[in-house]
Structures are given as structure tokens and as C-alpha cells.
């Protein structure tokens, strides 16, 4: 078994070897480490992408807008990921961002995951039938677990989710009522004597 430290170092060096700057390569190292830690095929995808990159072109998207159409080639998931992470505080205001085509979308995931942590909001990532929920960099939920992630993602949608409850008010009320069964009904005497504060508020 390879350690995460080996995974990070080797991914960083391999990315550098393919021409990414050291700073970007450091980001790749952290990202692949994260993917492998969350049990996604980070090494496999990076290896395939870097090998493909030797003789195939990809587009670098530096400035992210609401709708991002690549002109000829699919977006490089690494430069796109770094741009997304760097601009997340501006992107947050857009709420829903669309990308026409991203190569090796799995490699884009860790950047979304880290972005989710930066803004303290969940991020939803969807292309075709594949869905991912990036949860404040604590975990990534997906309907794609244990399946190969496609090498190309078309019509990608990234949504910044607002921090809303994940349950109905009715469910909450019902649960709250149960929790109340741990409380003691206060008598007049308890109201006066048991609080310890608030009796002389108007001193």
C-alpha cells in the first residue's frame, strides 16, 4: 500500500514533469492525496490525464464566469480547479456556474471540495447523470462510487448551495418534542430558586 505522503509527492513531481509550475504541482499533489483519501481513483485519473496531455491539447480557463464555453478543446481540470479555488469568493456570488466540457472531471473534484471549505458552503457538481456533493472538505458524496468516472464531462453544472436545513420543519418539531422529555417542569419555587441568575436584573 502506498502512503498518502508518497501519493502526494509523486503526483506533484509527475505534474511538474508535464510542465505545470511548482506551485500548481503542489496543488495537484494535495488534490490527488485528497481523492485517494476519500477512496476516489485519483492516481488512475491523473496518470491517464498526464499521459493524454503529452500529445493532446486542453484549454486553460483562468477567469471563471457564469457560463464557460471552451472553444476547441476541453478544459484542463487542473488549471480550472486552481482558478476555481483561487476565485471562489467571487464565484460564490454567481451561485450556478456552467462549463461546456471538462477533461477528467474527477481531478476537478478536490478543488471544489477545498473551495467548499473556504466559503463554508456545500457545493453540488453535476454532469450528465453523475452527481457529487462536496461537503466542506469533510467528505464527498456521489452516485458514482465504485464506478469509473468518465474522462470527459459535458454540460457541467456547479452550484453553490446555501446553508439551509436538510430536513422539514415538521421533522424538526417532532424530534424537538422528544428531546423535551429530558426537561423538568418548573414549579414557581424552582423558577425562583434554581436559575442562579436573573433575579436581580434591575439592581
Amino acid at each position: 500500500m502506498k502512503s498518502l505522503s508518497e501519493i502526494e509527492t509523486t503526483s506533484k513531481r509527475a505534474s511538474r514533469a508535464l510542465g505545470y509550475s511548482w506551485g500548481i504541482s503542489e496543488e495537484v499533489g494535495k488534490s490527488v492525496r485528497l481523492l485517494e483519501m476519500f477512496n476516489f481513483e485519483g492516481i488512475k485519473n491523473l496518470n491517464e490525464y498526464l499521459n493524454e496531455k503529452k500529445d493532446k491539447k486542453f484549454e486553460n480557463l483562468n477567469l471563471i464566469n457564469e457560463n464557460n464555453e471552451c472553444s476547441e478543446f476541453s478544459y484542463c481540470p487542473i488549471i480550472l480547479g486552481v482558478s476555481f479555488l483561487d476565485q471562489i469568493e467571487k464565484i460564490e456570488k454567481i451561485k450556478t456556474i456552467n462549463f461546456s466540457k471538462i477533461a477528467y472531471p474527477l481531478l476537478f473534484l478536490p478543488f471544489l471540495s477545498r473551495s467548499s471549505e473556504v466559503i463554508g458552503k456545500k457545493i453540488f457538481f453535476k454532469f450528465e447523470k453523475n452527481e457529487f456533493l462536496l461537503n466542506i472538505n469533510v467528505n464527498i458524496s456521489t452516485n458514482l462510487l465504485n464506478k469509473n468516472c468518465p474522462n470527459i464531462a459535458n454540460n457541467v453544472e456547479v452550484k453553490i448551495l446555501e446553508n439551509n436545513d436538510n430536513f422539514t420543519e415538521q421533522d424538526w418539531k417532532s424530534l424537538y418534542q422528544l428531546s423535551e422529555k429530558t426537561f423538568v417542569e418548573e414549579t414557581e419555587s424552582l423558577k425562583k430558586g434554581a436559575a442562579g441568575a436573573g433575579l436581580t436584573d434591575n439592581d
Partner: protein
Amino acid sequence: MKVELRDPNIIMKLSRLGSFHQSKLSFLRSFLDEFKDWEYNRDLFNLDPGGYGVAIYSFKKDKRVYSLVCFANKIDDNDRSDRVIATKWDAAFTLHDGVPSKKDIERLKNEVPRQEVGRLSYKELTLSRANKSVRVFNHVVEKLSEGNQPDLDLLEKVGYLYRTTAVYGSGKFGLADRFRIKNRAEINGPFRLEMMLVYLVRQFTFDQVNHVAKHKNPEKAVNLDKKICRNLGIGNSTGLGMAPFIVNHPTLLNNWILSREIALKEIREIKNVNSKDADLFKKCVKDSLKNITSWNSESEFQIKKINSLLFNVKKFLEFIENQLDFSTPYPFNQIYLWLEKETCEETIEYIVSMMMEPFDKIVQPLIKKMSSDEEKYFRIPTERTVLDLKNILKQRYPDILKMDFKDKSNLRNFWFISKNKEEPRYADRFEEGGAELEQPLAIARDIKKLNDQLISCKDDLTIDRFLMNNADLRHVVRRAFIVEKFPYAEIQDNTINENVVPIDMLRLKLSFFGALKFDPKSDKWLRICMFQGAPLPHELKDYNQHWVYR
């Protein structure tokens, strides 16, 4: 009275860092302190008459067990090399997490002696190998087998029976990643498990030498005297492999140096020093003369430093005996100011280390702050502006910004990773090939380049926009924002200058390990000794904390 922390722009110069000495903050000393009440055992000692075979040593407390698994092998004298390119060693070791099963031992037997080409598992924490000092080992065997103790002069000159040539941890070659164990209270300090490995290896060397002598002459052989054992440590040969570590772990480096600086500041701020503490300090300085006079080196560079240190420490002793009155306010501040005025970097740092000896209350809480969760500081705050970055560079890199990198001498060298051993190396970029594969360790040059690039940018430009067109500077933008928060995170020198002495970087790290008797063999590698004078495992329950100076 408030004393300022020392200026990073002075302290983080390589010549100063290369003058650091071990102290109470050093990892081998804090390791001994942490594990002093653990149960020590020799669980297995299955060596043949020649001393080859398997041995296991452990530290145990409650349900936690750490086991050192040792494999001693017979090798040809021609195969014995301290260089990292070696493939065979007299002994190889791993620290196993828990009690190794028979299956584990069989697995390790195949992997550990192969070192870098072997594979370890998450159950192993550290990995190392060591070579005998054949001259000393054979002499000791010879003498013990005749019923005599060895020649103390020879032992003092060398200081150890074995020297390690590498100690690996933190995920290398399949070893456990740091995150798996970082929450264990007993290893809340850097390199604690590496220190445990070296300490237990030291005991193995004594047991092995006794064992071989006994088998050589069962009738007459005696064991190596405990006092002699105590005065032997474990040698270590260290090359450039260690140097990039301190550049690649800026927040960790900061926390080591900052702890030392806070300790010094707080000691200088003590208004009244009681006579017990003053006497202890004076005793340590006096006793330490022995450490200097027994510090052997053939390096002209080091001999000069040792002679100057000896001269200055004697001068300092004269000062504290005849001029300084410890009952006057702030005596350690007076001492520090005197050192700055009257001595050299080597002496200043030597005495600073010793100032900590009486002050456990100051030192102990700092030991707990010497680790770092580096991931927390990895993200670049891209919402900040170019003006912020310009100010950081101006404030944190004042001397580096004055350097001229058009001058070839400032660019002379480059750091790279060798293909055959995957180890860091250092070479002349104008003489050797490979500079295009340079590692990102020329921080001064790249910071200067960043500064030049920033000059033409608008102050209110945000960093995310700046990075769009300057991806090649991303690694130093990240560093600058780290250094903003961690002032001692950066070496304030040019690590590729033609006059740089790489062993200064090694010595900095080794001083925090707790190494003694730095002995440079060139400007790129040195030998040191660890645990010399340290208590033996069975003495740990009650030992003198100031053993370094006895």
C-alpha cells in the same frame, strides 16, 4: 522589563542557524522525558555467535506498545558505506506499531534490510539502517572477550559503536503517514518516533557487542561497563537529504525556532534569578567544557569554530565568575548582551542553549508547540491584494530583496533530485547539466523575482488575478503569506549562492534533534553523535535531566 524576540533577519541567516546547539527543547531530550515512565523490554534476542540475527526491543504503557525490530546481517567490508548509494548495512531497523506477530517479523525480515527498495506497511512507523564503526566494535569485542574494558581514549575519539546513515519516517516507502498517529499524546513533538528508534538502536549495539564477546570467549568475557555504555551514543552520517526538509516545512521550522526564541526572551525577562538556578547554569557551562575539548573534527572549518568556542566559553566563565553579579536584576539579559558584544555566533547560541537548563517551567510548555499542522496554511489567501504582498516582502525579506541575481555567483548552484537514489543533491549550474530540473528550493531568487514582478502591478489587484498570469511564482506567493504569519519560517539567505555552506542547513536540523559533536566531512555531509551521555533504558525512571553536561 520587556525583551523583544530576536530579529528573524539576523537569526535566520545560515551562518547563525549553522551555529545552533542542542538544548532542552531538542527532540531526543524531550523524547527521553516523555518516555521515562514507560516500561522498557528486550523481547527477543535471537543472534548467532557472530551477532547476526533478529532482536526486538519495546516501550510499553497501558495498551500502547512500540517495538523496534532489528536485523543484524553479515556484510563484506567492501560493501560497507555510509553513503546513501549503499545497498547493504551491518544492521537494519524498523519501529513497529504494537507487538509484531511472527508473520510480521517474517515480512519485515524480507523488507527492512533492503531499506529504500523494500516496502513497509502502515504498521511500521520509522525505518533505519546502521553500520559498525568496525575499528571500535572489533576493539571492544576483543577487550571484553579477554575480560577487560576497552580503551577509553579510542572510545572517546569516536563516541559510538554504530552510526546510522538514514532514519526515515512519515510515509516514506509505505511507512505510516503522520496523520494516522498524530493524535497520540506521547508523540506530540517532532521526530519523537525517530528518536525512539535511534535510542533503542543504541541499546542494541551494546547488547550485540556483549553477545559477540561472550561467544568469542565464554570463560573470560565481561560485559561492557555501564558507565562506558552511557558515554557512547549512536553516530550518524548526514548528507544533503536533510537540507530541503527545512525549506519544505516552513511552519514547522518556524515553530522550532520560535520556541527557542520565546524561551530566550522569557529567560532574559526574569528579574530575580535564585542562586540554585544560577548555580545550575554555571555548573552546566563549566561541565560543558568537557564536551568542547572532546569534540574531534578534521574539518578546518569546524576546528576553527571549536577553538573559537573554547576560547569564548572560557572568557564567558571568567565573566560570570568575576564580573557578573547574579543577584542584580535581569542577569540573563546582562549575559545575553555581553555575549552579543564580546563573542561569536557559535558561542552565543551555545550559551543560549544552556540558559534553558534551569527553567523547565519556561521550556516544557514550548515543547508542546513545536509540531505543526502544515495543511492549515497551504491555501493562498487569493482575496488579498498585491499591496499586501508587496508589504510582506518588504517586511519579511529585507536582505533578500537587495540581492542581485544577475550576478552569476548568486545563482551558482541548483538543487535537484538524483534519479538513482531519489535523494536531494546540489551542483554548479554552470558546470553540470540538469539545472532545467531544478527543485523549488531557491527561495531567495524566486522571492526576488516575485518582487520584481509585483512592481509593475497595480496595488489593488487581487492575488487571484495576479496568479492568473504568474503561475510560475505560485509557490513563493504561498510562502510569502505563510511567512507573514510565521516570521521564523524562512531562511533569510540565498541557498544557491556560490559560497553557501549546505551543512549549515543540516546542522540547524540536527541541533534540534539533539545531536552533539558536529564533524563536517565536507561542505555537504557531516557526522554527529546522538544520545552520548544519555541514561540507559533501565535508568530512565530516575535520571539527571542535565546529562548532556555531565
